[in-house]
């Protein structure tokens, strides 16, 4: 009897320990996220003691090391980020959505089982490898095609970043499209709709917000991409006039300059402020797309 009691107690303690372990693991990831944010915000916000918001966001000149007259405008680099990520979306969205529709609605089960893992494998390519590919293969082609000195510009980078965002867009869109209930499609088929009409009038409208969210997630990836961008974007600080100009996005700028700054000085803090802004943008984008995807799945499964 006593032995049994002891055993029961031990079992209970063990259950509790296991529970605590899992809870702790969960809390760690939240703590890490919060910690990174606090760290970034703490250091980054100090930059704004000396740099005004207007100066930081609205001026095109970024020249922190200029003797006597340092300049702190990130607008040119924001434009670089915008060029690359929007350029990537212009390429990746039509290709990605078309692929997702093909996989979910048209491909035979065999084709889907084969193609989807291959597309998801793109996500496993280290971005430095894509960067090499861009440097050696794509940039020369772009420079020859447009007859410019260097192919290291926003266009080449957009193409490569588009490749990186494809798995996100395809994989999530396809999941959402496959959640469209069979009943809706059957209803449309039974009205005499062709396969294409069913896709256009039922499948896409019903899954549109989820597809939109997948594009947002792709955008989040594109904005945060660093290594590839560092290698291929050209990294000029000037405000880009077109897709054929070299650009220096925010991520690349941090990576380039952080090695050269003195820990704790204003330049250092300004780079952290840039990081804070990147973090805020991607955080909001990811959170918003998460909410949209959840809502969509709930809508499809009442």
């Amino acid at each position, binding site marked *: 009897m006593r032995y049994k009691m002891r055993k029961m107690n031990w079992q209970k303690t063990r259950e509790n320990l296991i529970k605590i372990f899992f809870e702790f693991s969960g809390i760690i990831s939240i703590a890490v996220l919060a910690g990174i944010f606090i760290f970034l915000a703490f250091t980054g916000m100090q930059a704004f003691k000396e740099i005004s918001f207007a100066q930081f966001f609205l001026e095109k000149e970024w020249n922190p090391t200029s003797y006597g007259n340092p300049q702190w405008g990130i607008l040119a680099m924001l434009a670089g980020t915008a060029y690359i990520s929007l350029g990537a979306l212009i390429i990746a969205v039509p290709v990605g959505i078309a692929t997702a529709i093909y996989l979910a609605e048209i491909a035979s089960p065999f084709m889907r089982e084969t193609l989807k893992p291959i597309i998801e494998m793109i996500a496993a390519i280290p971005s430095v490898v894509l960067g090499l590919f861009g440097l050696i293969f794509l940039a020369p082609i772009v420079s020859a095609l447009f007859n410019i000195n260097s192919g290291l510009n926003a266009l080449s980078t957009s193409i490569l970043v588009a490749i990186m965002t494809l798995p996100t867009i395809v994989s999530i869109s396809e999941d959402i499209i496959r959640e469209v209930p069979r009943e809706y499609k*059957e209803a449309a088929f039974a*009205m*005499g*709709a062709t396969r294409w009409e069913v896709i256009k009038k039922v499948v896409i409208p019903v899954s549109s917000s989820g597809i939109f969210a997948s594009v947002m997630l792709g955008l989040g990836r594109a904005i945060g991409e660093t290594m590839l961008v560092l290698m291929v974007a050209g990294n000029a600080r000037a405000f880009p006039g077109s897709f054929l100009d070299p650009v220096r996005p925010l991520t690349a700028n941090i990576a380039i300059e952080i090695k050269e700054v003195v820990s704790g000085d204003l330049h250092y803090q300004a780079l952290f402020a840039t990081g804070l802004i990147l973090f805020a943008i991607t955080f909001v984008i990811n959170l918003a797309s998460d909410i949209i995807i959840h809502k969509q799945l709930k809508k499809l499964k009442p």
Partner: protein
Amino acid sequence: MPKNIIKVENLNLWFKNKKILKDMSMEIAEHEITSIIGPSGCGKSTFIRTLNRMNDLIPTCRITGNIFYENKNIFSPGIDVTNLRRRVGQVFQKPNPFPKSIFENVAFGPRLYGEKNKNKLNSLVKKYLERVGLWEEVKENLNRNALSLSGGQQQRLCIARVLAAEPKVMLMDEPCSALDPISTAKIEDLMQKIKNDVTIVIVTHNMQQAARVSQFTGFFLMGELIEYGKTNDIFTKPRCKKTEDYITGRFG
């Protein structure tokens, strides 16, 4: 017997290697309601889904035999399936309005067939919502999402959606099995009102319903058509022992 609109000849159907329908032959009378009864899994739903070739969507489905719709074989290569489905509409067991507005649901067919004129669409939507007795209930706000309607309203909306395509035949696959008795009564009334325009084939597991609404009844068992005739005869003097056992509730 009145004029036939559909004629089924020696129909056999398999899913993979499983034979679902066995050598079926029957004729469906125009402007009448024909009900198909039988226990679950006897092939009722599969049968009506063959009439508008919805089974084409199932890759493992194989069919032999002929079905004539207005004297044309629906399996012949020259048949346009989308056109056939436009003429032979279907209402499903579970109400399945699109997650769009009430208006868009009814306008789906006309839009699909190329109607763009907003006034024409407005009047069609009104006409068919009135037809199914839904107009008074929803006219205040046609932009409401169809999924916010009650189950019975949704099913009537689905019927309106089918009717707006102006079909000659409407297949109904247990249309009331998910509905309450009042909604069911409304749909049965509706069927009587529209049968002069649309021939109805209804699958039902509810024998009272078959007796109430239909002029002809077919009894299916294990993929075979056991007995087919006037509803009154089937329910009062069935020729076949199995039919009698089923309608008196001895199995099923």
